[in-house]
């Protein structure tokens, strides 16, 4: 179907002035002519961006942090104006840049609904009609007449979302906000957005959740250094994006934990999840044996971090023995999904491999081959560890040592693929009339 575009970018560039702290006071204005003029520094999140979004279409924007994804949304919402080029947006634009941004703490939920509606230029009568639906969607019941400053953050966000999706927008801009709220509400939000999509509402989604973009968008746009690197079907664009960022990302995360020194041994009673000394700790252990490098290899034997189910997957990590240890050491790995589901964990003790103290040379590499990766679509993190054979003393534990993604073109859902054999058994006696 040929539909008219609702959002159009034509060679849009946007720059920000860095260091706006000077020229901030009237004093600066007066003394400026006498001072040595410092050349202004600019930052260009967008240099040349052109795209079109048709009515009812949906576009996911991906790219590294600070590449101007949010700037695009703000330009569409007319909060910012482009430095050059043209931005056109037709009709009512609703923004989910920050849920409940327009709320005033002293006003009740109900009053804030009317306020938010009037900001979006929707009359009192119109919003009155949807009022009950908004309140039931936000699920805040009697609290609707309480000032929003007494709301919990969850209630605040729920009301914010409920209002935004009920403003009958032509274009809906979503910036990472789906990561808030409980699971149940997130699901409800996504269902609602999908319904809006079927009602011809154009959606632009900025997210780091690659899976979300693949699920919800017809097209994906990869923004790289102010230019559109590629635009097209989400699966392809995301695969390209991940392939490029993979090598770089792994290097970066290894560099990050390699800088962090291992801390003192952890007393049993102090342990948090995964045996960490504090909830935020990324690396701990007494450092007798240290992990110094980590590589993820794909089926072709090259470094990668995007994989597919049923492919070969190899984890390699290098260790260095600092002090000899009394126990037989045990090497382990654990895989967590981005929503903290513990997908798999094992170590050499469980696998029945015993490294003799003597056999362990001063440095070496542990290689774990997974010939048939059974994980399904998602983002995963990998923990690697060396500890004593009983798992009580950590020599070195690195949480989230590496990130990787699994793309599943087949579309079966869940954590892992199970081998299934299907059969259809016909009941001979009962025939269709």
């Amino acid at each position, binding site marked *: 179907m040929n539909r008219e575009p609702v959002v159009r970018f034509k060679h849009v560039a946007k720059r*920000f002035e860095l260091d706006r702290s000077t020229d901030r006071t009237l004093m600066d204005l007066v003394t400026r002519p006498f001072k040595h003029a410092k050349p202004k520094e600019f930052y260009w999140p967008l240099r040349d961006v052109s795209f079109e979004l048709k009515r009812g279409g949906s576009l996911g924007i991906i790219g590294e942090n600070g590449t101007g994804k949010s700037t695009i949304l703000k330009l569409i919402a007319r909060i910012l104006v482009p430095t050059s080029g043209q931005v056109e947006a037709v009709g009512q634009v609703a*923004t989910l840049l920050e849920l409940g941004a*327009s709320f005033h703490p002293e006003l009740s939920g109900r*009053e804030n609904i009317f*306020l938010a509606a009037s*900001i979006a230029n929707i009359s*009192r009568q119109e919003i009155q009609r949807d009022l009950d639906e908004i309140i039931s969607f936000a699920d805040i019941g009697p609290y609707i007449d309480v000032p929003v400053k007494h709301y919990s953050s969850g209630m605040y966000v729920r009301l914010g979302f409920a209002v935004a999706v009920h403003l009958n927008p032509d274009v809906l801009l979503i910036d990472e906000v789906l990561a808030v709220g409980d699971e149940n509400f997130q699901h409800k939000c996504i269902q609602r957005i999908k319904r809006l999509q079927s009602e011809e509402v154009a959606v632009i989604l900025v997210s780091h959740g690659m899976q979300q973009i693949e699920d919800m968008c017809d097209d994906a746009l990869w923004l790289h250094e102010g230019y559109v690197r590629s635009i097209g079907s989400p699966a392809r664009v995301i695969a390209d994006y991940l392939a490029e960022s993979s090598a770089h990302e792994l290097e970066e995360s290894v560099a990050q934990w390699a800088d962090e020194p291992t801390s003192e041994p952890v007393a049993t009673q102090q342990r948090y999840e995964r045996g960490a000394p504090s909830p935020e700790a990324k690396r701990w252990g007494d450092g007798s044996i240290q992990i110094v490098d980590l590589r993820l290899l794909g089926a072709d034997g090259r470094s990668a971090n995007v994989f597919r189910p049923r492919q070969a997957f190899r984890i390699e990590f290098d260790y260095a023995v600092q002090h000899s240890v009394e126990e037989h050491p045990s090497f382990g790995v654990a895989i967590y999904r981005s929503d903290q589901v513990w997908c798999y964990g094992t170590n050499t003790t469980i696998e029945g491999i015993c490294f003799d103290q003597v056999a362990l040379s001063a440095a070496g590499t542990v290689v774990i081959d997974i010939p048939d990766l059974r994980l399904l679509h998602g983002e995963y993190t990998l923990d690697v560890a060396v500890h004593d054979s009983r798992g009580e003393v950590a020599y070195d534990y690195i949480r989230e040592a590496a990130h990787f993604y699994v793309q599943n073109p087949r579309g079966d859902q869940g954590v892992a693929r199970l081998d299934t054999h299907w059969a259809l058994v016909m009941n001979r006696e009962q025939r269709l009339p």
Partner: protein
Amino acid sequence: MCERYLVLVAWCWLPAMEVCIERFVLGGHLRELIRCRELVYHLTARELKARYKSSVLGFFWSLLNPLGMMVVFTVVFTVLMPNNRVERYPIFLLCGLLPWNFCSAGVMTGINSVVANSNLVKKVYFPREVLPIASVAANLVNFLLALLVLFAILMIFQSRLSSYLWLLPLVIFIQTCFVLGVALILSALHVFYRDTMMVMEVVMLAWFFLTPVFYPIEILPTSYQIMGITVNVQRLMYILNPMASLIATYRDLLYWGYRTDLDFLLRTAVTSFAVLAFGYWFFMRYSHRFGEEA
């Protein structure tokens, strides 16, 4: 003479008005603003509610505040400094103080209106001029309520009301235009230069003393020698300070019971509208940058 002057002014203004209509009305800015009148209403209500919700006496503060000021000034001027006796001083004072409070509160809250709502300005689009308009409107509501108190006091003093009282809404309208114009200019300036507020606090204090709020303008000399030039300070005050003219008009209507001079009122009106027009133009010129600066 006076009529000719008016015709001249009108002729000069016509082309300017035409340009304004073309640029703003047809350009869609004003139309967009008119579409947003419900937002203005909500923001005004929000400002009023938010201001009084957490205080015990609620909106009575807007009435008690000028009454308290009235008591203070009456004591100072009739007991401590009995030289400048003014008849029915409380009424005389309130006729100046209430419009002045409207002006000063309107300007001071107006200045901060854009910056104080920066969370809104950075996250949602709407015509930005709505913010100073709403904050001036909230102060206008306060002013109107305070006027009710003034009328009650007029009753108590059994003051004779002027038969030209119907001009009062017009005067209020002219003052609102003036205050809004100033608020528009300063709120836009405040976004870029954050010490506007600090400077204005001092300026407002000076302005208060330079405006005949608590003293009659007649105490100012009509001829004053400064560097060999004779100036009529009274006249200069009316020319340079629209608030002096406005307060004089309020007093004509409410205190003296006089019909006020129409050409005087008209000149004040022209000044106010000019300030508003300039303020609007200035605000619109810079408002597109508020999203990144506020």
